[in-house]
């Protein structure tokens, strides 16, 4: 179940609009993927995913000198905050960022809507 806080993070991570018609996370059907992920993934992976969403919402603003939560920030600042996670001096935060992007990618890059845009034709 995607909460309103998770939605803030995922909308900032993969927003609507942008280059070459790539859809946003929810336009690509990420909510369906997340439901399956929450049901199927092993416990450590699910915990990691929850921790990544938590860190993105509550910790990432601090990395750009802003007060949390992420929802308080303007859209451009949200993007800056999430980018800062991937460049953090803390290995743990970088790993959390990688996990956030990896799980999101699975529910995004595997969809027809995205694959069509990047010229991945079904074999």
């Amino acid at each position, binding site marked *: 179940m995607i909460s309103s806080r998770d939605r803030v993070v995922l909308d900032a991570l993969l927003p609507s609009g942008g280059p070459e018609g*790539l859809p946003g996370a929810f336009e690509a059907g990420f909510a369906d993927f997340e439901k399956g992920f929450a049901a199927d993934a092993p416990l450590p992976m699910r915990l990691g995913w929850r921790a990544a969403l938590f860190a993105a919402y509550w910790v990432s603003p601090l990395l750009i000198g802003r007060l949390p939560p992420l929802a308080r920030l303007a859209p451009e600042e949200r993007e800056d905050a999430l980018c800062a996670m991937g460049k953090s001096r803390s290995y743990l935060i970088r790993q959390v960022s990688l996990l956030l992007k990896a799980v999101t990618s699975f529910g995004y890059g595997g969809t027809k809507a*995205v694959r069509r845009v990047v010229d991945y034709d079904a074999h």
Partner: protein
Amino acid sequence: MRIDGAAGARFDEAFDYVVVGSGAAGATAARSLAATGRSVCVLEEGPAMDPKAFGDDAWGAFKTMFRGMNGQVARGRAFIPVIQGRTLGGSTVINSAIAWRVPDDVLAEWAALGLDDALPAKELHRYWDEIEKDLDAAPTPEEAWGGFNTLMRDGARKLGVEAAPTRRYASGCKATGQCLTGCPSGAKRSMLTTYLPQAEAKGALIVTGAEARRVIIKDGRAVGVEGRLSAPGRPSFRAMARRAVVVAASAIQSPLLLERSGVRSAHLGEHFMAHPGTPLTGLFDAPADLWRGATQGFDSVHHRRDWRVKVETIGLPPEIVFARLPGAGRRWKEKMALAKRTAIFAVQTRAWAEGSVREGPFGADIRYDLTRRDMMQIRRGLRFAAELLFAAGAREVWPGIFGLPERLLPGEEKLLDAGPDDPRCYSWILSHLFGTARMAARPGAGVVGTDFAVHGVPNLVVADSSVFPTNLGVNPQHAIMAVARLCAERLAERA
């Protein structure tokens, strides 16, 4: 004949040989043992997949065919994903089917360790001849290269360095780039479609959804295997072995099984070796066909001996490529839109590091830390890979290394050589695993003897890469199959 443990089919039988694991080692051993006319049972923890049902979505494949849904990690200073198949056919179903003979210099190292009689080069080469014929091993044909494989050829030609089409077990490769999610065309000669059906045809029973928990050892002899089926309620099973139990569950699972079975050795689960790898992405002016072409169709061993590195092409589905791209939000999407113009060259090193494998609360507790020498090798390898990419025409290279610029331009590849020494700055994969039940003539020096039997338990043999005394510097499936065949044929001769 097959039994699906997930469907709750009960079985409790006796066989001449019980083989634990159905990957490159288990399938090869089972086929050789079944050919002797003795009864064989193969136990596989994962499910049997129908090759016709293979899709092209990575998460779907991870869920059904990868251990821990590809969430298994080695812990050290850095967290490193450890990739293993968990399906009938093991990792051969989800790897790139690469066939490299163990290089002569590595065989010479094994001989220097006193293993020339146990692992004789001449016999291994004879097996490799046969396996290559069985599984249609051949250099990747040009029509299956696609853009990204051709780029390595171009880069190597321009630099005047050694690189060649990768020798793979495949015939009629359709260049779908789906080795990782299961070959949909059936061109890949995995154990699922070759040695396992052949073992079955010779009478072997294959049980899937059957997790081996313990080898039953009585009076110093292995008499069977007990475990749990994956059906609801996890019912137990027993497969009794009249002649021998063959453990071929991988360098991670085999030592854990032996430990749970009461085998004691200071070397069990130790000396865990691997080939850690890290990728480098090059951006080109034109599409590089990252999604089309043999998954790993070209490689360079130019610096295998001096720097202990091997550089390989790799084609991956978008969802895996995207995860490593830098940025978030619109910046991340801008990089995604460029992905079709990228090529990925991966660097793997024959690492000096040795780690350990123990039972942990969520499965295997794998400890592994790269050494300073390993980091130096990797940095040199990355520089070499960047030189190949630039020589092939890359306009920029994305290292994905913390502490280095997000993109490097031609002439800046030397920055990779002087990159950070800390493994936490890189993103890694561990895929080739060795040494956790290593072979040694003396019980004090290893877990199994030169006859592949666990010291003190003469009919409990280990047939997988756990017994390897060193890592290889090249992809190990070919080595694993030849060694498993040697092990099985010696075991059959004993009877």
